[in-house]
């Protein structure tokens, strides 16, 4: 699908702001970044521990996170939110250190380069949308005229152009999410923290949000960290994932590499001819036939199968069997390890999460 910018049509052109090029010298108050910012680690943790109210929540985390867009995952209580809050400077670290974009998080100036989109409702009642975002822009150091310009620009970019003069408290849930994104990007930060960005959004709005995130990622201007429970969202946008469990790092892996790995299986979508009273259901027969030939087959529901082919079998053989049994193969895909599998493997060794914390 073509990227179409924000959903509200491309009728109004936008002149590119002056001076925005990748060969510009770094901004005055910005981080001392090397010019090839992309290879620099976004986050570096060194034995980072955080104890809240006597409970150790993060236990000696050490890692180096690179990549343009990183997913932060973990079951409830794993320390995801705490890590995010610590990197934002909301909680002090107990021991160890953390660096964001090469600077220690304890330096106030590092937050100049950070944009944050909270999970919960976050706004100031009584202000219009554009006024609110402009205020946030000025608080981030933009001079007043620039702040106002960019506030409008950002509103159109996220697709809220029509509603920008209305008061924020009157916005719908989806609009409030977009405003949170707008205030996070108005100052053009180098690093974005997005906490459950698609929370409560209906499907078209969710698609748009994810598209915006991908655009921001692809622009090269900002690195993005997404914390979410929706693995699909993370899969669509992120190249790497950091999975936490019980306050420790369970896995840190690169999705693209995982997808290229050799381990593979097929996802099949099948439709069988209606079963006659006499014979067995064609789909069941198909599954049995595959198993007979040495495949591991799992049925997600009546239409979807997962099959791991033995070395002796090829896709063509699957088609042969299907044709013979009058089963249509309506969908076929080679699935590398999906994020769900990676996540479940990372949780291995866990008892059933009955503590529900």
């Amino acid at each position, binding site marked *: 699908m073509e990227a179409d*910018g*924000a959903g509200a049509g*491309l009728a109004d*052109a*936008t*002149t*590119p*702001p002056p*001076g*925005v090029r990748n060969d*510009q010298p770094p*901004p*005055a*108050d*910005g981080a001392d970044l090397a010019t090839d910012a992309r290879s620099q680690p976004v986050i570096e943790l060194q034995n980072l521990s955080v104890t*809240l*109210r006597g409970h150790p929540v993060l236990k000696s985390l050490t890692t180096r996170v690179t990549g343009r867009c990183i997913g932060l995952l973990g079951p409830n209580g794993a320390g995801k939110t705490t890590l995010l*809050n610590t990197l*934002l*400077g*909301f*909680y002090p670290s107990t021991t160890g250190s953390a660096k964001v974009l090469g600077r220690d998080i304890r330096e*106030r*100036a*590092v*937050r*100049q380069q*950070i*944009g*944050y989109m*909270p999970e*919960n*409702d*976050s*706004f*100031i*009642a009584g*202000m219009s949308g554009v006024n609110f975002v402009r205020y*946030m822009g*000025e*608080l*981030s*150091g*933009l*001079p007043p005229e*620039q702040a106002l310009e960019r506030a409008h620009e950002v509103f*159109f*970019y996220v697709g809220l152009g029509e509603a920008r003069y209305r008061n924020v*408290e009157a916005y719908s849930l989806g609009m409030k999410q977009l405003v949170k994104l707008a*205030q996070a*990007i108005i*100052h*053009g*930060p*180098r690093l974005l*923290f997005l906490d459950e960005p698609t929370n409560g959004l209906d499907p078209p709005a969710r698609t748009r949000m994810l598209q915006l995130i991908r655009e*921001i990622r692809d*622009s090269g*201007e*900002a690195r993005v960290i997404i914390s979410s429970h929706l693995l699909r969202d993370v899969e669509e946008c992120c190249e790497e994932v950091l999975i936490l469990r019980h306050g420790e790092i369970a896995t840190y892996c690169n999705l693209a590499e995982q997808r290229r790995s050799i381990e593979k299986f097929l996802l099949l979508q099948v439709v069988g001819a209606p079963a006659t009273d006499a014979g067995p259901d064609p789909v069941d027969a198909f599954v049995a036939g595959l198993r007979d030939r040495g495949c591991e087959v799992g049925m997600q529901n009546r239409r979807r199968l997962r099959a791991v082919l033995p070395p002796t079998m090829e896709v063509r053989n699957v088609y042969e069997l299907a044709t013979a049994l009058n089963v249509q193969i309506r969908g076929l895909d080679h699935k590398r390890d999906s994020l769900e599998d990676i996540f479940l493997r990372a949780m291995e060794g866990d008892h059933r999460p009955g503590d529900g914390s």
Partner: protein
Amino acid sequence: MAVYERSYHGYDGELTGTGNRILVISKFTTRELFRSRMFCAFFAICFVPSVSFLIAIYLRYNLEMLTELQIPIDEIFIIDAGFFINFLQYPQASLSFLLALVVGPGMISPDLRDNAMPLYLSRALTKTDYLLGKLLVLVVLLSLITWVPAVLLFFIHAYLGPEGWLVDNLQLPFAFIVTSFAWIFTLSLTALALSAWIKWKQVAQITFFGFFVMSSALGEAVREIFGGWLGSAFSAFDSYAVLISYAANEPVPISMPPSVAIMNMLVLSALATALIFQRIRAKEVA
């Protein structure tokens, strides 16, 4: 023809300094404040006493008519330190109290109510910056109706009045400034503390009113019943009165030692500040 696609661009322009951020908070808070016509009217009214006193001083020295009528104005209308103290203590103390009441309690609660604090604190702003930004608004507004007119009136009188009066009374402007600031900080910080802890502006305002007026009334009652000055130790109004008079080298209306008055204000301010910092967190520690 060139077609410009809307895409994401970062910001590479100039950035303002960190001190500027504090002023941004003040600017926006002030802007919101003066949107209300009621407030503009009220604020204008706060200047009425200043203007009246100004006219009084002017008239005192410029009405030939009075000398012709042989009215011994010099004996009736004496402008001395007491004049100014009366000015500060009566109309202006009450007005500044009212102004703090109107402005203060609504300053922090809107930011807390809808969870905007993380948005502030995720930027290069500290809690201190935030507090200073809000405080600055109150300090400036309250200054404009306490020491600023008092000092101006002083110098105008010095200009219009008898020779040498200025030199004799030089301690006055300093007294006004210092004591007014003590008063301003006490009022402002208390109002902000109430705003941080009480969600509804009106309830915070009533609490503010109650707190100061009650302590004053209580102080007076205790003084009446038991004598001495102990009752006043808890009253900010009385402390203010004591401090002004003391700093101006004038007789003190209540025989409370000025050190107690200062303690009263300091303790209240410190307590209020601590309470504010307790509340303006980005996240509650679960």
